[in-house]
């Protein structure tokens, strides 16, 4: 065969495989409002940067007449490409081929690209759109999932791992995304659950739709399994690209440093926080008044909104923010907000991202539901994560910092590098009303006018203790600063803290209160 003919043959073979499950299946996929796996890769990566591998891999199932079937690429596309000009590894399950079902060769393709991403230290992006295990392949399919989970765990904390749920992701398949760092979901397209509505109906008699059980909103608002929620696949891809501007490519690198920019002028740091500690405000505006170009990328925005986490840049370098949100549930810590913050702190620590903590909280959320849901165990995660973190850790106390909440929010005692407080800060064992009632109980109950006495004692306590100076006198606060000085103080504090060298006791790994 002449060379030209051989090249033509290759081109023809490629074109066949590019069609995945065929024209009809592609039309069906598009009719569901979904892009095909190939379209998704093109939309996400830099133009013409995708290099595909294992294009001609075929399934190896030999039972149930499977040997007579051709499944192009075995239902998954793998390769490398670039985002922002930097290389990434990617796989995308192709729902048009046997419903994107996972057989042994399908899994082997995924694990091949996972191995590359770990070996070559590049982020891994997995696009999930699969009906689940390929039943005809039996235990080989299960083995495939296991190999994937193992690699997710091995790569955890070494390279950033991103999961994009663009279709069903059910049963055991959900555990790969759950093991990765960031999960992206799209309204009406993403579906994640362990047991589907049909099983729930037959076994338990409960009727529920797929959307209500494990739709994008459910995971963005109720379970916290998803980190980013988008209304369309296009929006989802731009969220991924945005996130990658804040991340390093591996745990031995720093994030991309951008041109420093001042915050936008409409975010005035001096006029956001009300003086009355009982009044709410949106702490995200404080963050926006501190970061470059007021550009703050919030993570898990819709879940446990009483704590705010996300990335911004200060003087061009990435910073992870952890902030109490007085606008929602007065900014209390509870089960979900502890989980949310703790995992984020560990991500930042693993990937050399300095952490800035903005504190304004009244304490922990009271209630039987919280206690019985294990707020002790979950709350402990924040203490563990902060204590363990060795990246620069800077705290700014904006207003209230009461009791256990004060300790948990990266206090000096958990080895914060710098703790600053605004003049409006109140660092105390509890709120003035509660403290006065306990300390001056006798005076209040025996007074002629107990209410008047109570108000007087509350004022007295506020005067003496509801300020930053008691803590500053002990050196628990390094500096009491004006709000307008915060950005400069943070810039300098991060710069010097990046120089620190601290050791941890030798151990295989700690045992965090999961």
């Amino acid at each position, binding site marked *: 065969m002449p060379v030209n003919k051989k090249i033509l043959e290759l081109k023809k073979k490629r074109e066949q495989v590019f069609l995945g499950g065929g024209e009809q299946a592609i039309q069906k996929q598009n009719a569901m409002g979904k892009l095909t796996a190939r379209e998704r890769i093109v939309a996400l990566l830099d133009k013409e940067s995708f290099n595909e591998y294992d294009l001609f891999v075929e399934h190896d199932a030999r039972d149930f007449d499977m040997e007579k079937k051709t499944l192009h690429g075995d239902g998954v596309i793998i390769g490398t490409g670039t985002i922002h000009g930097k290389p990434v590894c990617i796989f995308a399950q192709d729902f048009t081929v046997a419903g994107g079902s996972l057989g042994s060769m399908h899994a082997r393709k995924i694990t091949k690209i996972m191995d590359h991403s770990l070996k070559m230290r590049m982020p891994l992006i997995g696009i999930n759109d699969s009906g689940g295990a390929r039943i005809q392949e039996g235990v080989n399919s299960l083995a495939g999932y296991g190999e994937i989970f193992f690699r997710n765990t091995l790569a955890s904390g070494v390279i950033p791992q991103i999961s994009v749920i663009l279709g069903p992701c059910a049963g055991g398949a959900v555990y790969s995304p759950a093991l990765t760092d960031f999960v992206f979901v799209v309204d009406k397209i993403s579906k994640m659950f362990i047991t589907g509505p049909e099983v729930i109906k037959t076994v338990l008699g409960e009727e529920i739709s797929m959307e209500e059980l494990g739709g994008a909103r459910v995971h963005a608002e109720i379970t916290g399994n998803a980190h980013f929620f988008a209304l369309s696949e296009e929006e989802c891809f731009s969220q991924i690209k945005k996130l990658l501007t804040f991340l390093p490519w591996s745990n031995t690198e720093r994030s991309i440093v951008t041109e420093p920019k001042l915050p936008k002028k409409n975010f005035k740091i001096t006029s956001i926080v009300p003086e009355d500690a009982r009044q*709410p405000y949106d702490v995200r505006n404080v963050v926006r008044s501190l970061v470059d170009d007021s550009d703050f990328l919030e993570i898990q925005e819709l879940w446990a909104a009483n704590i705010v986490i996300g990335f911004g840049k200060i003087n061009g370098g990435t910073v992870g923010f952890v902030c109490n949100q007085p606008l*929602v*549930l007065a900014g209390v810590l509870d089960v979900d907000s502890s989980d949310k913050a703790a995992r984020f702190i560990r991500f930042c620590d693993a990937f050399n991202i300095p952490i800035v903590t903005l504190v304004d909280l009244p304490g922990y959320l*009271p*209630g039987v539901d919280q206690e019985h849901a294990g707020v002790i165990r979950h709350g402990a995660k924040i203490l563990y994560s902060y204590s363990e973190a060795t990246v620069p850790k800077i705290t700014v106390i904006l207003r209230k910092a009461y009791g256990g909440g004060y300790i948990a929010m990266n206090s000096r005692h958990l080895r914060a590098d710098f703790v600053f407080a605004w003049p409006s800060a109140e660092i105390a064992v509890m709120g003035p009303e509660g403290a006065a*009632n306990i300390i001056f109980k006798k005076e209040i109950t025996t007074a002629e006018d107990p209410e008047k006495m109570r108000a007087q004692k509350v004022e007295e306590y506020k005067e003496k203790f509801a300020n930053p100076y008691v803590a500053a006198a002990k050196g628990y606060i390094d500096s009491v600063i004006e709000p307008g000085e915060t950005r400069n103080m943070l810039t300098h504090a991060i710069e010097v803290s990046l120089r620190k060298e601290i050791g941890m006791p030798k151990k295989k790994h700690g045992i965090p209160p999961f």
Partner: protein
Amino acid sequence: MANSKTVKQAKAGKKNIPSPCDEKGMNCKPLQIEETIYNTQYTKKFENRKFYQPVDPNKILAYIPGTILKIFVKEGTVLKAGDSILILEAMKMRNVVTMPFNGKLRKIYVKEGDIVAKNFLIAEIE
């Protein structure tokens, strides 16, 4: 009494504190932490939280959702602790629900073939 006090305080708190977030249509509500009432938004989860119900030892509840496969006893029977009352099948397991202590079975609220949700009241002991 403790409850009515909390509600009263909360209402008073809402009245006393001028609320910028109400003015801006941000739908703030009072939340009491220790003795202080804060002006803040609720989350859906917080609004839907279940209040604690003390456990009544005389009530036998389904500890798992499932199907009532077989009922062994009739209402009014006097039973000893450990005696079988019925089989609650769930996740292909046949769970025998037994008497927690000696007593008379006052009422059975299910019949064979019923599908019950978790914490559904199955039977009551006198």
